[in-house]
């Protein structure tokens, strides 16, 4: 098995998922480099590669001007992996899609500056074909490794389409609702290992929804079990799933 040529790219994001890559530690990262060759990575090198086996793309697609760059990456890549919530679903960036006045709210008197202009925050898949997604804010570095391993062996990676409740129950975590709290684990895509709920923090669905979330039941349960007002229950899931909700703009 020859080394797979890998390239990294970033779009609208906090670049936290790139930081997460550095959290593997030296030993794991150097072991990984026995199996992959990084041929393009703006943060770490100036070389450009004509083609690569896997392109990892971080960040969401928020400017029409980025389409050309994305199409160029797609042409050069055999496999495109959108990694991190912003690339996979639009992530928190997509919160602005529902708020036409976001620039005034965030930048005040500077809202008119031309460099602040952008379109809706969309997942990378809105611009180009994406083969695999690594969900999460930040993405789970071990899941990324698992996906790379599967691709190196010519296998299709399995990405969970069941909710966080499954992983939470497997860990025998006391349900947030039984602790007089709220949670969105019932509709959130698993794969994180229920790390937040195990720490006593409600799931915010940072990995997005499962394929067919029961949004009506979520609103009902947030109201009836967690005492949310109707408007809070209606908007609760928007933080990480604005583009996945049935009212996505």
């Amino acid at each position: 098995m020859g080394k797979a040529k890998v390239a990294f790219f970033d779009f609208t994001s906090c670049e936290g998922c790139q930081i997460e890559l550095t959290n593997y530690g030296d030993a794991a990262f150097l072991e990984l480099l026995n199996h992959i060759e990084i041929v393009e990575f703006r943060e770490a090198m100036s070389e450009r590669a004509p083609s690569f086996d896997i392109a990892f793309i971080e960040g969401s697609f928020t400017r029409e001007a980025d389409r050309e760059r994305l199409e160029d990456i797609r042409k050069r890549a055999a496999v495109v992996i959108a990694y991190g919530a912003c690339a996979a679903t639009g992530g928190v960036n997509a919160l602005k899609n529902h708020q036409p006045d976001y620039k005034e709210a965030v930048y005040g008197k500077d809202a008119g500056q031309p460099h602040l202009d952008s379109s809706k925050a969309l997942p990378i898949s809105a611009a180009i074909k994406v083969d695999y997604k690594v969900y999460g804010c930040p993405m789970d570095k071990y899941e990324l490794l698992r996906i790379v391993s599967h691709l190196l062996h010519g296998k299709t990676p399995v990405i969970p389409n069941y909710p966080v409740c499954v992983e939470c129950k497997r860990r025998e975590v006391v349900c947030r609702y039984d602790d007089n709290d709220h949670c969105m684990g019932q509709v959130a895509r698993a794969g994180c290992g229920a790390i937040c709920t195990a720490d006593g923090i409600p799931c915010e669905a940072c990995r997005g929804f499962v394929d067919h979330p029961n949004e009506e039941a979520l609103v009902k349960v947030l109201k009836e079990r967690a005492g949310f007002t109707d408007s809070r229950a209606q908007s609760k899931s928007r933080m990480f799933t604005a583009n996945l909700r049935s009212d996505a703009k």
Partner: protein
Amino acid sequence: MNVYFIKDQDFNSFVAKMMESKKVVGPVTKKSKFVFAALEAPEQLRLDYDVTILPPKKEFFPTCQSLMKFQGNHCEGCINPEEKIILGVHFYDVKAIDMTDLLFREKNEDWNYLANREAATIIASNIQNVSSRAFFASVGKEVTPKGHDAFLTKLKSGYLFETLTAKGENLVKFGKFESASDGQKQEARSVNDVPLKKCAEALKHSSKEIAGKVRKSFANESFWNEAAKDCFSCGSCNIVCPTCYCFDVQDDWNLDQASGMRTRYWDGCLTEDFACISLGAGAVENFREHRGERFRHRIMRKAAYLNEKLGGPACVGCGRCSSACTPNIADPVNVINKLMEA
């Protein structure tokens, strides 16, 4: 076998002596709930628990279980049973363990489960507090709890300890036991009758009547779709169930890309992809695509499909699914009683 009595003041020393001999697993607190966990001190044991989040099945069939290590083309199984004593199992969980014993033994014997099961000594105990969702008194009355090694009953001034197997009898040496008197045996019978009268929920029909009606309701799509309207397909009802035994198997490579591990994980038929099967060439078919079909399937499995094999329903009335379901629709009592009246 034999019936013994041990005084309250001698009980913790009995538990401590067992802990010196092997790992002892029992109910302990986790926030406002209970879980089975390895005891670190006898005082942690909470035999007054109502129900645990997960059933004791996890001691034989861990939620994530390594099945096989591989290195290139060489592979090695991971069966490595640890001798342990599981203390404080309620009778409904004893019934469930007896069912999973049968299910993992029939046809292809599953030694990943059976080796752990055979290495365990099970001490059942009476139910001192009844969970608000339990209905064990009215479900599967024809199924007798069996397969445990001893039964412990809390009496006013101590515990009655009935040994049922050689494994159970072998524990007597760890405690200051005396032969139980007829009065103590009588007291234990009364104590064990109490929880049967304290279930807040009850099925209103026999297992046979229920199985017949449930099967006949298969085509009643509007009933199942309505029942599953608020279902998240979250699988919580499956994961907490003591008689569910489905699992998913995944292979993962280590960083060296030459060695790795095959692991199985508890799975649940309520989740959307559970019934997804490959048709080849990348095509997929989901034969229970809608949530109503998946909701129906669980009730069919629990109330009808396995009854002949198990001698009764594959439900023991622990009420874990009812408590775990956030929209409160999984309760078999509500679903079945409504169906029986439909």
